[in-house]
């Protein structure tokens, strides 16, 4: 389980604080060692004090000595003064003595000092005794000779001598104490110096150790923090990578859906268009059929009436034709008669011929028999009569035939005339047939019209359904479009996130400068692969520049959206050039904005 970073930092803080406290403690100790309060320093100070206290002593002893020498020759007033002075000097001596006692830290010195002190005390008591002796001596007594000149002359002189001696001893003692103390001072000073040096170096090592500990613990904790953040960043990274990939997927998917929906909408649109065409052609059909119906009905009506006229014409024609037929029959009859006539004429002629031949043969043979000739002649005469009759009738028949032929001619002329109008017999038939067909057509056309109407109704319904489908699909397509746009946006966020995490990782691993490593997706145009992945497949990969299909604006200012290379010329364009401000501006904003 990962220990919280905060805990780690707290631990680091505690360690650092402890180490600093340790260091401070040792500094304090070292300080203690070398300050005025350390025993060595105290001794040193006492020695110094001792030296100070010792300082007035030689002057004091010299002065008291001098005072003793001056005393005998002094006036009473002067003596009083000198006495007072000797008392103060004693007090001073005592004070100096006290200070010395106070200052004396060790026995040696104390001994030396008590010696000196004793000697000093002796000097003072000698002086006091001497002063008392002088005071007790008569005023006119010989003055005390100058010290050293006639020491043996009087007891006073010998007392003075003793004083001198004591002062000299005292001085020697004091010098000794001073020498000892000075020696001690020198010793202590060197001791103290070495102690300071020692402390300094131990402080140095201690602080080095402390720094080492702090650095080490910092490094340890820091690196463990970095490790943990690194691990977290790693996980974050794989997360954001996944998100980015998913975003690309989603975006591509959304685009595909959008494209699909668009295509669906487009094909629906085409369907609508086709249906509309169909319905219009269908209603056109219906209209045509209805028209055909009407026309056919009319045609059948007119053709019925036409039929009637045709019938009449036909009847006329038929009558005429009947007439013609009759005429022809008459012609044929007359022709038959004529033929009969001709046949009989023929027969007759043959018979006449035969008869005539026979008569001739017979008449020739009958020469003698002429009698037969007569019979034949009779016969020929009968025949001739009949022939005459026949000829007469033939002539009549021929006359009649001519008349009939004339009639046929006129009738056929009139038939022709009629048939030019009402066509000939065949056409009349096909006309009648046509009338029938027209009627059928009319009926069929009616059926077609009805069916077309039904069909048009169906198509209208289909059309409505398709329109609804179209609306829904359009909405779908719009939704998909919006989703595609949104997901593209999200994709760029995901990429931004990835870059931030990359920057964090770079920061942790101490690589290149993190911010340089991660320029913003949005700040800097970045090739987005969606366009690549979902670009409609119609744009052939062979196409050298997909940019052709991009608006210049995108090439200029937002390659990010569809991420393509920017050409040099386009780079020089500015949005203001791409979006010119025109006079049409006013049309961009319309309406009453007075409340806002």
């Amino acid at each position, binding site marked *: 389980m990962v220990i919280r970073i905060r805990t780690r930092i707290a631990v680091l803080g505690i360690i650092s604080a402890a180490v600093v406290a340790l260091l401070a403690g040792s500094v304090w100790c070292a300080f203690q060692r070398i300050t005025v309060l350390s025993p060595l320093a105290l001794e040193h100070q006492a020695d110094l004090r001792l030296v100070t206290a010792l300082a007035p002593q030689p002057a004091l002893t010299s002065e008291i000595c001098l005072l003793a020498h001056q005393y005998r020759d002094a006036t009473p007033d002067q003596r009083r003064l000198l006495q007072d002075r000797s008392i103060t000097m004693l007090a001073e001596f005592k004070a100096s003595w006290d200070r010395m006692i106070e200052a004396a830290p060790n026995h040696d010195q104390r001994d030396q000092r008590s010696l000196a002190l004793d000697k000093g005390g002796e000097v003072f008591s000698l002086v006091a005794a001497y002063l008392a002796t002088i005071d007790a001596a008569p005023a006119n007594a010989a003055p005390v000779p100058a010290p050293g000149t006639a020491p043996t002359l009087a007891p006073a002189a010998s007392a003075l001598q003793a004083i001198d001696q004591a002062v000299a001893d005292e001085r020697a003692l004091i010098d000794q104490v001073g020498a000892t103390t000075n020696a001690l001072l020198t010793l202590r000073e060197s001791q103290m110096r070495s102690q300071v040096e020692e402390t300094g170096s131990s402080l140095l090592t201690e602080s080095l150790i402390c720094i080492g500990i702090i650095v080490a613990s910092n490094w340890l904790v820091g690196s463990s923090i970095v490790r943990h953040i690194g691990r977290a960043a790693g996980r974050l990274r794989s997360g954001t990578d996944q998100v980015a990939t998913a975003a690309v997927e989603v975006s591509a998917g959304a685009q595909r859906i959008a494209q699909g929906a668009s295509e669906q909408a*487009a094909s629906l649109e085409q369907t609508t268009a086709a249906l509309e065409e169909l319905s219009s052609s269908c209603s056109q059909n219906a209209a045509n059929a209805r028209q055909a119906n009407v026309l056919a009905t009319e045609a059948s009506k007119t053709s019925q009436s036409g039929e009637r006229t045709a019938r009449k014409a036909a009847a006329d024609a038929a009558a005429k034709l009947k007439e013609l037929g009759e005429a022809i029959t008459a012609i044929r009859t007359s022709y038959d008669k004529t033929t009969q006539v001709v046949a009989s004429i023929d027969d007759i002629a043959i018979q006449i011929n035969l008869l005539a031949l026979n008569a001739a043969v017979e008449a020739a043979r009958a020469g003698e028999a002429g009698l037969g000739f007569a019979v034949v002649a009779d016969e020929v005469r009968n025949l001739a009569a009949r022939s005459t009759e026949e000829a007469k009738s033939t002539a009549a028949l021929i006359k009649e035939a001519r008349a009939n032929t004339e009639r046929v001619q006129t009738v056929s002329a009139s038939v022709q005339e009629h048939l030019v109008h009402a066509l000939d017999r065949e056409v009349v038939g096909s006309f009648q047939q046509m009338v029938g067909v027209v009627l059928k057509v009319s009926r069929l056309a009616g059926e077609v019209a009805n069916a077309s109407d039904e069909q048009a109704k169906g198509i209208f319904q289909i059309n409505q359904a398709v329109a609804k489908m179209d609306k829904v699909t359009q909405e779908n397509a*719009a939704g998909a479009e919006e989703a595609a746009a949104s997901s593209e946006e999200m994709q760029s966020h995901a990429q931004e996130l990835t870059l931030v995490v990359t920057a964090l990782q770079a920061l942790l691993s101490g690589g290149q400068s993190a911010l340089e490593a991660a320029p913003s997706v949005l700040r800097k145009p970045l090739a987005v692969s969606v366009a690549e992945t*979902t*670009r*409609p497949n119609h744009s052939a990969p062979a196409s050298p520049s997909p940019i052709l*299909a991009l608006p210049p604006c995108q090439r200029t*200012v937002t390659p990010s959206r569809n991420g393509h290379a920017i050409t040099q010329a386009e780079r020089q364009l500015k949005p203001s050039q791409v*979006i010119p401000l025109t006079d049409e501006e006013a049309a961009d904003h319309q309406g009453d904005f007075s*409340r806002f």
Partner: protein
Amino acid sequence: MTIQEMIDPADYRSLSELVYDRIGIALGPSRQSMVSSRIAKRLRATQTTTVRAYLDLVKADKQGEELMHLLDAITTNTTSFFREPAAFAALDEDVRARLSSGQRQFRIWSAAASTGMEAYTIAMLLAENGATARDCAILATDISTRALAACRAGTYTAEALAPVPPKMLARWFAREGDGMRIHASLRALVTANRLNLVKPPYPMRGPFDAIFCRNVMIYFDLPVRQRLVSACLALLRPGGLFLIGAAESLYGLDHPLSTVRPSVYRR
């Protein structure tokens, strides 16, 4: 013939240029099938057979009538009532706070209103808080005249009204024809005007208490977004809300806003 083949690349490019130039929508190559399917209707309606011929027609039309139709066709008008509800919750909270501090007048702008569902959602929200057309006004703007017409009509289908809470539906809508129509009192709150977001300056004085500029920047590139956001923010009062779509962000844009919650900012 597939739909893509309907458009010659050069024609598609000039169409994209025109659209970007007019309304800032960047149509990449991936939008081609969408574009084809959407303008197919216009081609049919104008009885032109090629995109080039259609574009010539658009350019020749000095009234801009056909351009309007083209833009209607190109814009994606997806919207819904209470879309991304957190935005409306934020507005509601803000409105209540202002009401309790004594503010009575409200001006709110739905900057890409589409068919007005966003504007009417705001209207319901204000009305539920006791707003009247005397004090409050909502400006709904869009580039699509077709969408604006739907907004002015205020009639919606049952499916479209599905996200409206039943109580509000009962209070603010009345059955009319196949659908439901929003109350006249709410329609009075909303003014629907045509406004091109990518062509500032805008004709309003401002300031607005809140500006909804949602799900339209996804169609724009960065420079257009920057222009749009700067122009909008100039009309937003200090402390006013600026709301964007859930998928959108203000990354890479210069702005003085602080985040209230994702997609909701305060000036």
